[in-house]
């Protein structure tokens, strides 16, 4: 494919394919797919993985959400057969593939961990950045359980996500 025809949607499609979103048609059918895409791209844009695609996130009912990202993955859905084919013909270089492997290794297809980590990270870094440090963690977790009450019964996932905050470079 000519290089000048590649745009950010192609890069996005390739990334999604590498992190396990291998059938783009599922994006429109399954809300959990879309949530995972939103949270995964948020994480991949951190310094640790160095995929700065320029998507800016707002905070809405289900956590951090990028309207621009939503626009782009819906473009992929509308042309799913083209993108499903495209991802088989292009690859990232070794360094980038290694970064994606690291992402897959850390999160091991555990979408609950992706969701928890991305949400907690966003709340700590942005939404509660105006709070003093000594109350920030408490406010963040109180808020997190308010918007994600299903994780009250999964403390091990939440602990894992919180521990990752210190080890993943922002």
């Amino acid at each position, binding site marked *: 494919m000519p*290089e000048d025809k*590649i*745009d*950010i949607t192609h*890069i996005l499609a390739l990334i999604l394919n590498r992190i396990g979103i291998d059938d783009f048609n599922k994006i*429109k*059918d399954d*809300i959990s797919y*879309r*949530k995972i895409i*939103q949270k995964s791209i948020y994480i991949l844009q951190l310094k640790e993985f160095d*995929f*700065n*695609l*320029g*998507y*800016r*996130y*707002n*905070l*809405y*009912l*289900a956590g951090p*959400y990028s*309207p*621009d990202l*939503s*626009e782009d993955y*819906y473009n992929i*859905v509308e042309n799913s057969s083209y993108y499903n084919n495209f991802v088989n013909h*292009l*690859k*990232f*270089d*070794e*360094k*980038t593939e290694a970064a994606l492997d690291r992402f897959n290794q850390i999160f091991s297809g555990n979408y609950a961990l992706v969701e928890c980590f991305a949400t907690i990270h*966003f*709340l700590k870094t*942005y*939404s*509660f*950045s*105006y709070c003093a440090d000594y109350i920030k963690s408490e*406010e963040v977790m109180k*808020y997190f359980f308010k918007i994600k009450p299903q994780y009250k019964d999964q403390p091990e996932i939440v602990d894992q996500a919180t521990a990752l905050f210190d080890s993943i470079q922002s």
Partner: protein
Amino acid sequence: MVKFNDTEKKIIDSPYFQRLRRIKQLGLAHLVFPGAMHTRFSHSIGTFAIAQKVASVLSLNKEEEKNLRMAALLHDIGHFPLSHTIEEVYSNLITELILKVQKKKLKNGNQTDENPMQIPILPKGVNLHEEIGSQIIKNTELSGILQKEGFNPTEISLIITGQHPDIKFNQLMHSDLDIDQMDYLIRDAKNAGITYSTCDIEYLISNMRADSDIIFFDLKALRALEHYFLAHYFYFTQILFHKTRSVIEYCARKVYRTAIEDEINIFNEPIPTIHTLSQYVLTKNYYYFDDNYFEVLLREISSEKIQKYKQVISYRKIPALYYEKLVLNDSSSDDNSRPKEDEIIIIEEKKILDDLKKIRMRNACPDSRLVYEDSKAVRLLIPNKYDYEPKVILLCQFQDTVLQRLLDFKFKILRRYRFRD
């Protein structure tokens, strides 16, 4: 009449806010619609006035109201000369750099990253002015004024950027029908003289409701909501996509971009680039980064290659439109040919209901309280007579609307212009 407290008056009197008097809301649209001379200043005051009304209708507490008013007043503090026209130049440059850096990661022969390009810490997209505004609020004298009066500047900037933990604010400032849109739709239509792109905003505001985190409208407002979305569509097609306005704005962006590439000086200072912009806005030079800045730039830039673009703006020597094609809903009609040397090709497109269409593509949620990621979508309160429990649903799921018939409608127009000899 709009009333301000002492803090709000101090903010309005600051040079950063007064700068907005010198930035026209619709950029160079006054060259087509002579009445479109209104500024970001009047729009910011208007948005503030709407925020006051909304705070009263939703019965926000004193703290919430105080923060919402201040965020509404300051939401456009980071705007660029000619508003979105110049913002788009910087956004495009950032997007191109992002793409260039990401393409380098593709497996392609012997590419190395000996000189990795640094992407400035600014996002792509039309919200660049919000990020700039956020920096101004947190890092300039405005921060001091706000803190002294009991505000938290970071909190105000989070409301403006849609990242505040109180999601009500994010919906009020960043949704398919937010208070910013409520003001500019009416203001821009009135000043441009396009009466059919107005709607009954007062009625919509009076029917807004809030239930903890969710903002929605009473079912009574359904037709007013339909009218709003149609008015918004006409606003785009009749004002923003006007054939002459489009080409004038294109030429302005071309001139400005050339100025950045040629690294020209304005007021003896280098023009800000995407790498220096975030520092530039914190200096006193930023007070003069307004429409006059662009006027001076037009005089200073002498590059031969853009003289014809300059004349479009300075002398209204508009290129002739020699081809126009409306390509409704047909993406296969995209014209991929490159423009010739004396040609300009512009494609404009607008879906009536971008987000509503996306929602329709999904399965309906059986829950009575919908918590899709599209919290920015408009919601309606449907009284349920049988269960006595009212339901809140998304507007696009309500079948009895004209909008349902228009969910697939996409206005797309291709125009070719040629410079006159």
